[in-house]
């Protein structure tokens, strides 16, 4: 029995990294389908995707990482995938950890597996400010939901059918990760974390660094609001 698995790769001006990404993803086993989502890149990303003949979705303009990933989740839902995983196009998420995430969801009976920077080695190369930010977010989530998520900012996450169905209808648009963690927990889904050694970014900077205080304020507000909103009664209702 094999499951239908989808890798969602959000692409925003990633042309510099795409050839390497094609090579790495091309070496994957057949059990994973790859779907690139071009979020209105202004560089040659789209042309590279076309030339490679890869399966991709081309958003007419940039709608941000949340909407971009949600597009992939909608695709996964519609095409009846059992699992979908977000894998960032900047090479930060190690492809080798895919099977570990899948295994965790299968064996540990959780709905979402997060590739976490913190679970294994405490000395992970994460900058001081970022670490502080993550700690604040993590404690807030603990207070709001009673559960411990060590790395709520990680975008490297594998979703099962149930969480795909929920998130394809309702996914935060900006800085989506911590907010969606609270949303999922609030709606009774189970999240596990798998220790993952992230690659150092080959380019770009994280939004928590770029936007600093604004990021924290927006995410904190969103998380509190998620808790204050009523639960999603069932899939599709809004």
């Amino acid at each position, binding site marked *: 029995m094999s499951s239908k698995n989808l890798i969602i790769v959000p692409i925003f001006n990633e042309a510099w990294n795409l050839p390497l990404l094609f090579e790495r993803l091309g070496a994957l086993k057949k059990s994973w389908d790859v779907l690139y989502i071009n979020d209105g890149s202004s560089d040659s990303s789209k042309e590279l995707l076309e030339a490679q003949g890869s*399966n991709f*979705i*081309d*958003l007419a303009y940039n*709608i941000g990482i949340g*909407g971009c990933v949600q597009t992939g989740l*909608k*695709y996964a839902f519609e095409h009846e995938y059992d699992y979908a995983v977000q894998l960032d196009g900047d090479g930060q998420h190690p492809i080798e950890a895919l099977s570990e995430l899948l295994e965790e969801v299968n064996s540990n009976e959780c709905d979402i597996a997060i590739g976490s920077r913190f679970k294994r080695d405490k000395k992970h190369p994460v900058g001081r400010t970022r670490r502080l930010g993550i700690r604040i977010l993590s404690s807030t989530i603990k207070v709001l939901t009673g559960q411990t998520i060590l790395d709520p900012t990680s975008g490297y996450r594998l979703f099962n059918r149930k969480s795909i169905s929920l998130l394809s209808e309702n996914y935060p648009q900006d800085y989506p990760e911590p907010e969606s963690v609270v949303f999922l927990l609030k709606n009774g889904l189970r999240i596990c974390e798998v220790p993952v050694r992230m690659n150092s970014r080959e380019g770009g900077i994280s939004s928590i660094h770029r936007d600093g205080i604004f990021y924290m304020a927006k995410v904190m507000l969103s998380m509190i609001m998620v808790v204050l909103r009523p639960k999603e009664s069932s899939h599709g209702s809004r």
Partner: protein
Amino acid sequence: MEADNLVDINRVQYIAIAVSVVYLLAILYLIRGKKIREEYSLIWLLFGVVFIVLSIWREGLDWISNLLGVAYPPTAIFLIFFMAIFLIMIQFSLIISRLSRNNSKLAQDQALIKQKLEQVEKKLSEK
């Protein structure tokens, strides 16, 4: 001080009435030309009417400032003005939020349909 006494105290009233009328006509002109939708222009029209009423009925301002407990009547104008701006700005935030939500949903659906269409076309040409 003497120069102040020479100023026609009615002049500001004439100007206020003229400006309010021009403002109101400008809004109506924009609605007529379908530049503003009626539902978004109501609040602007409402304040236009308030401006005209206040510029014609001078005691009205005294009455309102008395009601609000404002000692200096012109301050009441600023107070009303700020409240108006606030309401309108909040309404704008609501509209912008709705538009951006609709906008990204539209982009998502359009992109998904485009991909599906390409797949179908590919399959058809293979046959």
